[in-house]
Structures are given as C-alpha cells and as structure tokens.
C-alpha cells in the first residue's frame, strides 16, 4: 500500500507524494479547481471567531493600540496565560515562563532551534503532523518514530518510547489529543512516560493544541504538571483551534525561564513579535466568556457522530477519535493507495480528504478526514464519497479505467 501505481494521478500530486506537507498543499491547490468541492482536509475550524474576541480587536484598532510589543509577548497576556496554565493544566508557571508565538507551528520551530544540536534525536509518534519534520530537521535534529496503532486507539506506549531511546535522544514529542489520529495519551501512560523521561534525563515537548476538544468523557492531562517534570517540559498550545481564530497566528508555549528567554532571542531574528492585534485577540479569548468553546465542542461532537456513522456505512473502519477534529480512517479495504483514493475522491466526488501518507510514509492505507464543515455538508460529502469508494473497492474497478 506504500507505492503509487496509478499513472492518472497528476504530476503536481505524485511529484510531492513523499513529502507529507507538500502533498497536503498540492491537494488543497488542486481542489481549488473544483468549484463545488467540500473541504475535509485542512484543520481550519469553519466556525466563526467568537464575537467578544472580534469586539476587543475592533476596539484596539480603533484606539490605535497596535504598537509593537516585546518579542516574548505583551505582559498582560503572558500573565493571563500563566494563570490559565496554573488553573487548567496545573503547571507551576509565571509570566516569565511564557512566550507568544506566531502560531503553534512557529512555536515548534523556535523550540527545536533552541533545544537541538545537529544529530540530536527526537522521539516522534507515528503517524504525525509532518510539519514537525521541518522544525526538527532544520535544527539538525533527527526524528525517531514511535509506532502507535489502531488497536491501542493511537495511545502512546511507554515501552515503545523507552525502546527507542539512544545516547543521542534529547526529547520526546507528545501530541495529545493527536493530529492526525484523534487519539489521546492517557494520564496513566503520561505518568509512565514521565518516569522514563526523568530516568533517561530527557526533555518532553507536549503539544496540547487540541486540549479543549476531547469526547466521550475522556480527559486531557498535561504531563508538565507531574512531579519532576516542570524543569524538563515545554508545553505548546495556541488560540487558533480552540477559539476558531487560525488567521490571527497566535500560539504560546510554557517552559523554564531561561529556555523562554532563549526562544525569544530566536524569535527576534526569525519573525519578531506576534502581531499586536492578535495578542489582543488572545487576551480577549482567555479572559472573556468560555461559552463558545462549550458550544464548539457540542457541535464537533455531533459532527463526529455523523462522520463515524457515514464511514461505517461505507464499510470503512477507524479508531473512535477521543479528541481533535479528525477521523483517522482505515481505507485499506478499498484496495488502492490512499493518495490515489484521495485524488479519486477529489476528482469524482469533489471531496477533499488528505491521504495518510500526508502524515507519515507508512500510512498508505489511511485517510485523515476532518469534521470542520456543517453537518449538512458532512452528510453531502458522505453521500458523494460512498459511490466512489464502492466503485473502486477491491475487485470492482481498476483506477483509471
């Protein structure tokens, strides 16, 4: 399932098939050709940014409060974030332990530049959001994959983590809830991984950007709150997903003070401070009503059920996502490579879905399907997808015929 065999796939897709990030962008650009396409690809919430956030930003702009802030972020927002981390995540942090980043992705880049020397290894769960690749390799680091699987709901196995440690291992990356799988790393497993990190003197990078979206009674837990972890954990998060404000490009990280100071130095020479209006938006998001998040969660829960039912009806299997916005769907029963299937779904059903290979080379039998469309559009997408999946299911039709 890991090689492309369909000559009908356009070169713009096949040429970048081995680069997960470029593959996703190539499919997005291709989908722009289809006027009626339903996008279940990118992780950009379709819901509007809450009005109280917009109102605060409007006020800041009207009052000309848009001057540059310190590189690490405006003090009142860093204080509010420290308070959030203490209250919600039980991290013992102060303002000096916080930095604002130009989105979570930049946070990753900054911390890898600050942490890694050439040859250092980072343990990364497989599958993964492939933007980690660029962040790690551009700092000279090397990724070492930690397998996760459907049977274990894509939870991270402590024994798999420990087995991958070498003398060059510097950090363990934890993504919970996970993009692309929707799996979460449970508190019990996090406690075991924390013990491993302490035993081997490793840093933990905890990407918690989907922390607010967990389903069916599952709980998010921050590894940085565990005893002995505060000095070895960098916690990444952002406003984009939680408050449906991806365009503001506002993320944040918590870490020991000296590490934050070093990250700020890197940020000063790579992108400068986060846009001031975005920081006002972040402050409004944190200090205003949290009711929109509860409403978002209710909406996503409903959509998740619609998508799960539709995929089951198509004969596709998945591990029920415990968090985030995605269904990591096993498409191997269709019998064709996921990149081909994604292309065919776009071409014949006008539904944009990312192939599993957009998240790791071993995942040619999986699709990542987002739930970031209205329930009606999700139902329509499922209706369009079903005949295509059935047509190409093993033995029915060879792609291209």
């Amino acid at each position, binding site marked *: 399932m890991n090689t492309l065999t369909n000559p009908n796939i356009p070169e713009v897709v096949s040429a970048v098939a081995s680069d997960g990030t470029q593959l996703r962008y190539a499919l997005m650009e291709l989908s722009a050709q289809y006027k009626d396409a339903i996008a279940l690809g990118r992780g950009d919430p379709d819901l509007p940014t809450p009005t109280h956030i917009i109102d605060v930003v409007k006020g800041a*702009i*009207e009052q000309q409060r848009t001057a540059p802030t310190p590189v690490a972020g405006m003090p009142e927002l860093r204080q509010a974030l420290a308070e959030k981390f203490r209250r919600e995540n039980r991290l013992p942090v102060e303002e000096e332990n916080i930095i604002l980043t130009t989105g979570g*992705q930049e946070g990753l880049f900054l911390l890898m530049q600050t942490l890694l020397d050439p040859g250092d290894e980072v343990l990364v769960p497989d599958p993964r959001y492939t933007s980690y690749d660029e962040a790690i390799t551009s700092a000279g680091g090397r990724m070492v994959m930690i397998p996760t699987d459907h049977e274990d709901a894509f939870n991270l196995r402590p024994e798999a983590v420990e087995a991958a440690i070498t003398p060059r291992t*510097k950090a363990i990356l934890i993504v919970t809830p996970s993009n692309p799988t929707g799996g979460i790393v449970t508190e019990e497993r996090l406690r075991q991984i924390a013990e491993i990190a302490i035993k081997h003197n490793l840093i933990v990078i905890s990407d918690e950007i989907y922390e607010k979206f967990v389903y069916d009674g599952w709980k998010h837990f921050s590894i940085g709150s565990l005893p002995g972890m505060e000095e070895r954990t960098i916690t990444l998060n952002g406003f984009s997903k939680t408050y449906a404000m991806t*365009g503001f490009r506002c993320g944040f990280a918590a870490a020991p003070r000296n590490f934050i100071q070093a990250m700020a130095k890197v940020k*000063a020479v790579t992108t400068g401070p986060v846009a*001031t209006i975005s920081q006002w938006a972040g402050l409004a998001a944190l200090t205003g009503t949290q009711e929109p998040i509860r409403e978002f969660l209710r909406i996503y829960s409903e959509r998740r059920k619609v998508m799960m039912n539709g995929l089951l009806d198509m004969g596709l299997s998945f591990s029920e996502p415990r968090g985030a916005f995605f269904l990591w769907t096993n498409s191997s029963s269709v019998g064709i490579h996921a990149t081909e299937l994604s292309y065919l779904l776009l071409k014949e059903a006008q539904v944009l879905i990312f192939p599993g290979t957009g998240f790791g080379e071993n995942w040619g039998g999986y699709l990542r399907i987002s739930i970031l469309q209205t329930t009606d559009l999700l139902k329509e997408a499922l209706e369009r997808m079903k005949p295509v999946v059935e047509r190409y299911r093993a033995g029915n039709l060879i792609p291209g015929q």
Partner: protein
Amino acid sequence: MSGPQTLTRPLATRIAGLPEILERTDTPMIPEAVIDAALEALKAGRTHYTDRPGILGLRKWVSEHLQQFNIASKPDDVTITCGATEARFVIIKRLLSKDDTILCPGDPTLIEGAAHLTDTKIIHDLDQQHRVKLLYITPRDAPDIVEPLLAQAEQQGWWILWDMSSGQAKQFHPSQKAVLAPRVVSVGSFSDVMPGWRVGWMAGSEMADKLRAYKQSLTICTTSISQWAGIGIAET
C-alpha cells in the same frame, strides 16, 4: 517553576552568540485607511488562515510597486511574510548552507541574527578566504560600491538579497539587469506605517516557490487581518 531555572540539558549551541533583543518602541499613528480596511476585514469574518502566499490584493500591490522600477514582477512571485524579519530569515536559511558567506557592504545589523542562527558568515569586504554565496544590499548602500559588486555577482552566480525595507529605493533595482533577475530576491515591509501588524513581503527569483514553502513551514501564513489592513496602504 522553582529550583534551577533550566532544562536539565544545555541549550542548543547556536543560542550562544545570538544578538540581544532590540525591542521596537515606535508608535506611529496608523492611517485611517489601514484602520478602515482592518475593521472591514473583521466585519467580514476574515479571521481564518489565508492562502499560503498571502492575499492576492496585497501581492498585486507589491508586484505593481516593483514594476515601478521597470522590472518584471507578478503576484505569483510574491509571498507576504510576518514582517521583513521573517523574509530575511527565510531567504538566508533557504538559500544558504552552513559556513556559506554573505557579503554585506553596509550595515549588517538586520541580518546578523539570521546569519548566526544559520551558521553562515557575514563579511564586509571581499577577501580570498571566503567564497561569497549571497550579496546583501539595501538602498542605503552607495551606488559606486554596489555596482561593481553586482558585476561580481553576475560573474560568480551569487544570490542577491535587495532589502527595500532599509531605506527608500528611488529608481535603482538590481533586477533591472535581466541576467541577475533570477537570482534577486526583493524584501519589503509595511512596518514604517504599521509596525505592530507584522506585514512584510519577499518577491522574485527562481527560488520563489521554495522560499514560499519554507515560509509556510515556519508560520503557515501571515496574520489575516494584518494583510487586509495592508490593503489600506495599497489603496492610499
């Protein structure tokens, strides 16, 4: 976080030697047109990711701005960045490799950090020890210094970073010499007018797509409302 305020292992070696942070403190009055454009974008709900290269209207403006220098430019060659800082870093990171040399005949302040982070060297004068890969020039550099260096750039196949965010460009642009154009990347910024909004751009060269892809891997896209606000400048 009590106790020793440090991770248990040292920071990356590249951190030592990074320049101290120079915080900006300027607070110019933002033009009404910028404010109106930003408010309009907020009203229209433009608070989600933009296209990776940046919004078309702003790229068109940059492209037309560059055409005033009698050079070829099209919106497809333009990427909107988080200020000129991001553009300079992306260019140096993507076009150079470890131990490569940047020739900077003028003030290197704006590229020192990026050069340090990418393990590249900056020299002020040509010498025999260093093999130059990129020429960093700005409108502040004297023409009698720049012109012979451009001739060298043509001969040696150097990249040229033309930083228009540093000083007001009048008529000159290195891409006016057609043979140089594929290796010239122009950088500009809206920071003089709207400094806290973090909008800049990079344009041109045969590497425009690859530079754009690297920018995407760094920050995905530039702040949406800031980009729409930039349209306000374009319209005045």
